[in-house]
């Protein structure tokens, strides 16, 4: 069982380019999340999805979009990357939306926007 996989592992991107970060889980969890991690700021929620077909905005959604066409996949798209989006991005999933269950994290994608 792989858990959560993310791709790519790292990427250097020119400003203005479009980029999609991929996230796939094999645990059949209903809820999925995207976070960004920046030094001194911890993790901040970008977008989430409580179930396939629905998405919601987190704390820092501007410049990002997500889709949830099925249970397993939750891609994050940067339509036009800017240097402030340089960060480490983590995808996570959980089995319920009640706030009681564990969030399982992927290994992360390190993105540099120049």
């Amino acid at each position, binding site marked *: 069982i792989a858990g*959560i996989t993310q791709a790519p592992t790292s990427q250097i991107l020119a400003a203005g380019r479009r980029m999609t970060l991929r996230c796939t889980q094999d645990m059949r969890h209903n*809820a999925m*999340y995207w*976070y960004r991690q920046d030094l*001194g*700021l*911890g*993790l*901040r*929620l970008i977008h*989430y999805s*409580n179930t396939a077909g629905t998405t*919601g905005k*987190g704390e820092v959604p501007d410049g990002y979009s997500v889709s949830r066409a099925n249970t397993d996949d939750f891609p994050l798209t940067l339509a036009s990357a800017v240097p402030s989006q340089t960060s480490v991005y*983590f995808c*996570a999933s*959980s089995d*319920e*939306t*009640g*706030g*009681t*269950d*564990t*969030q*399982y*994290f*992927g*290994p*992360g994608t390190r993105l540099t926007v120049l």
Partner: protein
Amino acid sequence: AQSVTQLDSQVPVFEEAPVELRCNYSSSVSVYLFWYVQYPNQGLQLLLKYLSGSTLVKGINGFEAEFNKSQTSFHLRKPSVHISDTAEYFCAVSRPRSASKIIFGSGTRLSIRP
């Protein structure tokens, strides 16, 4: 709204010494509390969580935390640390039935000296 504060950004300790990582939260409603650990170049994984019941919670790798409602704290402790405990530790808070609203602290980097 909830918030969580980790009072120390870095904590250096000697191997086999005890350690306490501090976490304070604020919320106008009851909350769930979590500690996650992030080893170098990895995603986060759950150490322990408090949902209700006994205020002393035991987690993996010999860690424990105590929920103190009057002091709004959830400090993490270990009586004797090992080199392998070197990692970043994140305290998090969520509102019941709202997993999308998990708020992470800024993290505490634990460094173990031999």
